[in-house]
């Protein structure tokens, strides 16, 4: 019977059906970081347990690392404590860690793929909701909480409910200045921030087929912002070629055999989906969020919704968001002044993102009222960008060029908004207080749009901005 990728991967990892109807699922790759794992190790110790498959867990440090001065011990005592705890736990359990000295440290969802640890057909879990990123490779990858991190450490398994699959086809041609970020913001805007609850999103169609792995990762990354814990793309030539030669990918003949299996996992023609959605890529324009959840967005040439024209049940949420954001319904989003520009995060801090941002600002300068920073997704991204001279483009434009980490996406280090600052951000969440100031304000957009906003000091349409400069 024709099957979806989700079914094939799920079945290959199913240990048994539990008495309560859930599946005991084997986790092929477990990624950990310093924020959600220390309590899990403590719980495991408290129960006298041990790590069952230490070679299937990989650690890095990302959330709390300072991006300016990374010398140890960190000046930030709590950050130092958290990193030390991770180091100690990994050492005791025999878990491999990519730390700051490794040259391979970075945001866990950037590091896994670029090292070739992330491979098609794996089940991947991590105590981080953006684990959906790894689905770009045709893995079934999802975020878990700390008690589940404990369970994976103890048993390499999780107890899970089966997922439905919604296939989202994106066909047609994306316009210039329209990016993967705009596609996923469009999907979230259309299907809602909880539209994906209970589903895995399978992204398909010409546009996805033609995307690079970096772009597919951006799409899968924000599945969770649409409520879908899992998002994936079927493995194809692009996937295989990305993995060829990566450090932890199979090598030589083994790679060719692996590639055969990887390709065989793609959803079969005739597989049935519990839901299907089709999106016309040609209609998508550069998108900017104006509210306090990632579904509250408009195209850059649109106006903000007017509460008075909305159905009663939507009015309150829109009013709350506009009030928090200090924006007025009916106003255009273009022209909204910004204070901070952030290019970074597991959504958009890969080499191709940095290239696009650099292309936009080449020969320009950040507006005098704006502080702008680029935080590469990993040390490898940072090194590759420096080899291309991108850091010089950013530095001469007045951007700060930082070390790798999660940084201002969620402000668990020193990088944060102050007071009511407005940030044009290439990250994934515009929740109240997300970027570190309880009253700080976030506008999500593509890295190119962030770069253009940094120069203009306000939201501008990157399509016309690039032509005009």
């Amino acid at each position, binding site marked *: 019977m024709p099957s979806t990728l989700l079914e094939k991967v799920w079945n290959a990892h199913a240990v048994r059906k539990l008495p309560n109807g*859930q599946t005991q699922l084997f986790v092929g790759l477990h990624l950990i970081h310093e924020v959600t794992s220390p309590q899990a190790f403590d719980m495991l110790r408290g129960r006298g347990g041990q790590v069952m498959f230490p070679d299937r867990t990989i650690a890095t440090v990302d959330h709390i690392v300072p991006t300016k001065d990374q010398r140890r011990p960190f000046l930030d005592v709590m950050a130092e404590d958290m990193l030390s705890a991770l180091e100690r736990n990994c050492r005791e359990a025999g878990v491999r860690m990519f730390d700051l000295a490794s040259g391979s440290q970075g945001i866990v969802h950037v590091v896994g793929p670029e090292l070739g640890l992330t491979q098609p057909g794996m089940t991947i879990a991590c105590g*981080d909701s953006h*684990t959906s990123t790894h689905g770009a490779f045709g893995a079934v990858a999802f975020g*878990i909480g700390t008690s589940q991190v404990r369970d994976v450490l103890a048993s390499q398994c999780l107890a899970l409910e089966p997922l439905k699959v919604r296939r989202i086809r994106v066909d047609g041609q994306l316009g210039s200045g329209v990016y993967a970020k705009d596609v996923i913001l469009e999907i979230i805007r259309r299907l809602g921030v909880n539209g994906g*609850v209970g589903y895995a999103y399978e992204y398909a169609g010409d546009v996805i087929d033609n995307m690079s792995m970096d772009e597919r990762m951006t799409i899968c990354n924000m599945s969770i912002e649409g*409520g879908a814990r899992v998002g994936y793309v079927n493995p194809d030539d692009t996937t295989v070629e990305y993995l060829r030669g990566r450090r932890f990918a199979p090598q030589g003949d083994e*790679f060719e055999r692996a590639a055969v299996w990887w390709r065989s996992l793609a959803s079969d023609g005739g597989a049935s989906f519990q839901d299907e959605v089709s999106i016309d890529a040609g209609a998508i324009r550069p998108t900017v969020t104006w509210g306090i959840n990632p579904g509250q967005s408009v195209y850059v040439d649109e106006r903000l919704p007017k509460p008075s024209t909305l159905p009663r049940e939507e009015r309150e949420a829109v009013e709350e968001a506009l009030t928090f954001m200090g924006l007025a319904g009916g106003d255009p989003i273009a022209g909204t002044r910004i204070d901070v520009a952030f290019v970074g995060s597991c959504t958009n801090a890969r080499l191709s993102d940095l290239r696009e941002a650099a292309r936009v600002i080449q020969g320009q300068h950040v507006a005098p009222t704006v502080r702008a920073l680029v935080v590469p997704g990993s040390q490898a991204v940072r090194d590759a960008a420096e080899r291309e001279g991108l850091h010089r483009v950013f530095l001469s434009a007045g951007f700060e060029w930082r070390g790798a980490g999660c940084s201002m996406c969620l402000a668990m280090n020193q990088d944060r908004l102050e007071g009511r600052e407005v940030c044009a951000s290439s990250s994934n969440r515009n929740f109240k207080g997300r970027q570190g100031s*309880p009253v700080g304000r976030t506008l999500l957009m593509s890295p190119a749009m962030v770069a253009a906003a940094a120069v203009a000091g306000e939201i501008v349409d990157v399509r016309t901005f690039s032509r005009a400069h």
Partner: protein
Amino acid sequence: MPIEKILAVSGTALPVRGTNIDTDRIIPARFLRSVSFDGLERHLFEDDRAQAGESHPLSNPAYHGATLLVVNANFGCGSSREHAPQAIRRRGIRAVVGESFSEIFFGNSVALGLPCVTVTPEAATDLQSAAEGEPRTSFTLDLQTMTISTATVSFPAHLPAAAREGFLDGSWDATGLLLERYTEVRHVADRLPYLRGWR
């Protein structure tokens, strides 16, 4: 593992209105800068409370001692941080009643023995109004009959069968269950081409 059956939760209720209340709002990221969950309850909804002033229900002493939290749609969306249900549970809440929950938040709550049951949107607002009208109103969530009731009203509540069974028979902590069949786990690992080797 400790076996604790959860058959019912009774007590007063804390009504927190709003759709899409994300885990950053439940517990802002700066309070995740720790290697333990200790003390998180002090920071539950901290920024929302600061911005709402006295009007946030958690700042209202009338709701002190509530054991149920009543919310609206897509509660707990966003970050997978277990710190969110940890903070809620450590504050004394023993069950959450709402229109819908994010999947990760729901799963994290189950792992803590914190049932999150769903009710219709109308029932959620009616229950919130009941608690707001008289904060000492006593509610009972009965997981055997799957109802949430006060002395005067009762609404059907829903919980996926597996989670419900886990609470009723005390098997909601999955670790023991997952450790039962090591040989079967090993078999699956040995069958997977990426672990067995690409022969």
